[in-house]
C-alpha cells in the first residue's frame, strides 16, 4: 500500500527524496520504496522520518480502518 502521507509531508516541507534520505541517513531508493509501499521501515527509521518532517508517527503511518 502506497504511503501517500509521507510523500505529502515531504512535499509540504519542500524536500526532495534525496534530501529526506540524507537527513535520515538512508538511500534515496529506500525513501522511494517506503513511499511506494515496497519497504516497511523499522520503528527507528519511522521516528527519524517523523522528526525530520516535524510530524507524529500517527500522521505518517496510521491508517484508519475502512468499513
Amino acid at each position: 500500500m502506497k504511503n501517500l502521507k509521507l510523500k505529502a509531508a515531504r512535499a509540504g516541507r519542500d524536500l526532495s527524496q534525496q534530501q529526506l534520505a540524507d537527513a535520515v541517513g538512508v538511500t534515496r531508493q529506500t525513501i522511494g520504496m517506503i513511499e511506494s509501499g515496497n519497504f516497511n521501515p523499522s520503528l527507528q527509521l519511522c521516528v527519524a522520518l517523523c522528526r525530520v518532517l516535524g510530524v507524529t508517527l500517527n500522521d505518517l503511518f496510521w491508517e484508519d480502518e475502512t468499513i
Partner: protein
Amino acid sequence: MKLFKTNMDERERMEMYTVEHYFFWIAFWGLLATILVQNFILGAPFQQSAGEWIVFMVIAVGSCIGYARKGVYDGGISQPGVKSYLLYSVIGSLAFSVLIGASMILRWQAPLHIAFLGGVICFVFLFVLLFATMALLGAYIQNRRKKLEEKFEDDDESNS
C-alpha cells in the same frame, strides 16, 4: 567495534541478508549433493571429498549452535518435543539408510536382502543417534528460550 564502517541502510542490509539467505541454502544443499554423489554414486575415496565434508560440517554445526543460542528451533515449523524429534529423526535416518542401501547395490553389487539389511541396521543406529541429538538440542533450546525470556522480562511483570 566493527572492522569496516559501511554506509548501508536498513533496507539494503535486509535485502543483502535475503540474497545471502537464498544462496546460503543453495550452497548448503549443493555441497551436500556433491559430497553424496562423489562418495555414494561415483565411489570416490573419502580423501577426495574430505575438505568439502569439513566445510559442510562447519556450516551445519555452526548454524545449529547459532540457532540454538538464539533459541531458534526449526524456523517455526514445529516446537521442540518428542513428536518433532521423532519426525526429524525418521526423515534423516530414512533418507541416509536408503542412500546406503542403494549404494550397496550400485557400488558393491550386494544382493537385495543384504542391502536391505544394511539399510535397516543403518536406520536403527542413525535413528538412535539423531533422536538423542535432537532431544539434547531441543532441551538446550528450551532452556535458552527461558533464559532469554527472563533476560528481557518486563520488570513490572516479574515483580507482580
